[in-house]
């Protein structure tokens, strides 16, 4: 091989590595990205069972029920619609009725949402941003019930 050919081979090798990385990233995006929904979005367009989504909203007052062992069921609402959620495991410290939550999981074929994670953050004023934005836009959430401003500030120091 001449020097030029060697050089081309090295460059081709590097390029193909980058190409593999790009393909890998695209594949991973198609596999593991979860879209965010609120209960009223789900009333409008269906999500097929088995697709991972994030479901956000407020924990409906009076909806939290503890089942056998550590299984908990509750409803996530955004004022106009609500979705029943079941979750097995330990809830975050800041999980309360009336608080904003983001849960991640899938719908089973029987249209029940099974969450495998319930989002918790580092601050008592924390309202998940996605939830706060939408609730504010819809006029359900009022300023002063724990403002997202201080929440963001308190939670950033990690």
């Amino acid at each position, binding site marked *: 091989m001449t020097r030029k050919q060697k050089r081309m*081979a*090295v460059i081709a090798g590097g390029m193909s590595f980058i190409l593999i*990385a790009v393909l*890998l990233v695209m594949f*991973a995006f198609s596999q593991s990205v979860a879209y965010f929904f609120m209960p009223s979005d789900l009333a409008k367009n269906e999500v097929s069972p088995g697709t991972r989504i994030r479901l956000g909203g407020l924990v409906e007052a009076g909806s939290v029920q503890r089942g056998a062992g550590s299984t908990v069921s509750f409803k996530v609402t955004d004022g106009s619609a609500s979705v029943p959620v079941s979750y097995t*495991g330990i809830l975050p410290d800041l999980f309360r009725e009336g608080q904003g939550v983001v849960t991640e999981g899938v719908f089973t074929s029987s249209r029940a949402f099974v969450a495998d994670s319930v989002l918790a953050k580092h601050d008592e004023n924390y309202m*998940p941003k996605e939830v706060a934005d939408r609730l504010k836009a819809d006029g359900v959430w009022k300023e002063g019930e724990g403002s997202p*401003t201080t929440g963001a500030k308190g939670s*950033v*120091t990690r």
Partner: protein
Amino acid sequence: MIVEIGHYALVLALAIALIVSIAPLVGARRNDAALMALAPSGSIILFGMVTLSFLALTWAYAVSDFSVRNVWENSHSLMPMVYKLSGVWGNHEGSMMLWLLILTLFSALVAFFGRNLPETLRANVLAVQAWVAVAFLLFILLTSNPFIRLMPAPAEGQDLNPILQDPGLAVHPPLLYLGYVGFSVCFSFAVAALIEGRIDAAWARWVRPWTLAAWTFLTAGIAMGSYWAYYELGWGGWWFWDPVENASFMPWLAGTALLHSALVMEKREALKIWTVLLAIITFSLSLLGTFLVRSGVLTSVHAFATDPTRGTFILAILSIFVGGAFALFAWRAPQLKSGGIFAPISREGALVLNNLILTVSTATVLTGTLYPLVLETLTGEKISVGAPFFNLTFGLLMIPLLLIVPMGPLLAWKRGDLLGAMQRLYLVAGLALVVGLGLYYVENGGPVLAFLGLALGIYLILGSLVDLWYRANFGKLAFSIAFARLKGLPRSAFGTALAHMGLGVTVLGIVAVTAFETEHVLEMKQGMTADAGGYTLVFDGMKEAVGPNFTEERAHFTISKAGVAVADVWSSKRIYTARRMPTTEAGIVSFGLSQLYVSLGDPMADGGIVVRIWWKPFILCIWLGGLIMMIGGFVSLSDRRLRVGAPSRRAKAAKPAKPAMEAAE
């Protein structure tokens, strides 16, 4: 009064920073020694002013002066003193002060240790450092001033976020910032080299200790942060691929690449342009991290609305510095001469491969971190990119890198013998497979990948020693002679070996925990038992307790093995009185390198409580590896050859001293 002095010192610091950011540059152009001499003294005074300002703020925290708004918002008179003091940087304004303090500390260190840098280079470097200081001083004074008073002064503060009330806060942010901000020195050196349009191996020799120091602190900071999150948050995880974590991890990856490419440049005068670019990229990622964390942009782009000035201000700083540096690079880089030809299979070739993989994986992490933000800004769609994405992409990309790590040091510069290097590693690879299989058997099976992962970790650990083994020539020479030769090896060889070994230890820990961890969530009543990792836990009951600023419900567990009690552990749920905020304090017991992790859930109606128990085999390896890497960094730093300017000092002493130079010092 003291608070006002602090405030004025900060304004004065801005004035000094402005002078240092302009005068030495002009001096370097006109070759005016007096103007250039402003740089070192100005940088040291700048550091003094910022220190004064920082101490004033610390004093306000120490005496709980709630007439200062920042103190009122983030402190409480009942907090223990250590948290009052570390609480200084437990909030937005204070952490920017710490950022600035460390930035000016590095400027002062360059001024102090850089006495044998060429005068113009030193003047330019310190001027660039001062630009960054000006930007952040303006940011603090205009948008995040910690010295604003409250009238009338409140009687009691709002308390520090309870999650932050932990010794971790005292250590983690300073270490992390020493790393993060330390890369500013590399950036300044790169920009100064571009301004001068000249760069050589000596440049790399001056930059490398700073890169190494920053990298070492960043390694320590990230490892410390990971352990803190692990024990404090009570979810038993040690890395969440959270954007805030990625913000610190990306500069680490790029910094690791920089460390290796600067080596090539120092030894072989090759990869010059690439090294300069990498230095710029690394600090740009530090700035990007600061932007992501400090602007509140992370949870949503809309967080800008909550405090638009701060977010846009940092974004402006980010675009000016990153954009400016890249523009300068595009303009000047063609003038830098590259040199040093090498064959693809050589030490240089291995390091290029290292750089390729590290930068591509940095780009992957960057994509995963920024994609949700970009998508939301453009389309309004909200998505989350979580651990599965990063595990798949980053994890796979790392495998080839880990495989070549032990080979690099075995290859010769210029033209290496790959076959020879591999032959030296056969034994190690075989041994690693056997030990991996042994561990796999002891842990009673699991996925086959786990066995390969364990073998990979052991291969890295043993492989790091192979280079030392062959350089000392153990096996061929008599043991005592070889040992003497080993002692004679440069410290940087030990530093490399330790850092690579630490990487192996971390890989081992990650694989072991991922594959063999067990988790039990169960409802327990007093007297009930649970099994985990071969140990039996007995729940002895709950007890109430009161701390300085919290109340807690503590659960006691006795741990026994084969009927013999070996340890006991408390796990609790706390309520911090001032903020009415609950936290979970996990109970953790170490058995060798493995841990039992007990976390409490909600109390049940019938008097029981939900308990979550993890068995985490070899988890301590993850952070132990970080610690070993850090030690490797320090060992390497202590190498004589790396000591800042050590070679040039001798060279200069030989020359007759110039009068202009004495004036400069």
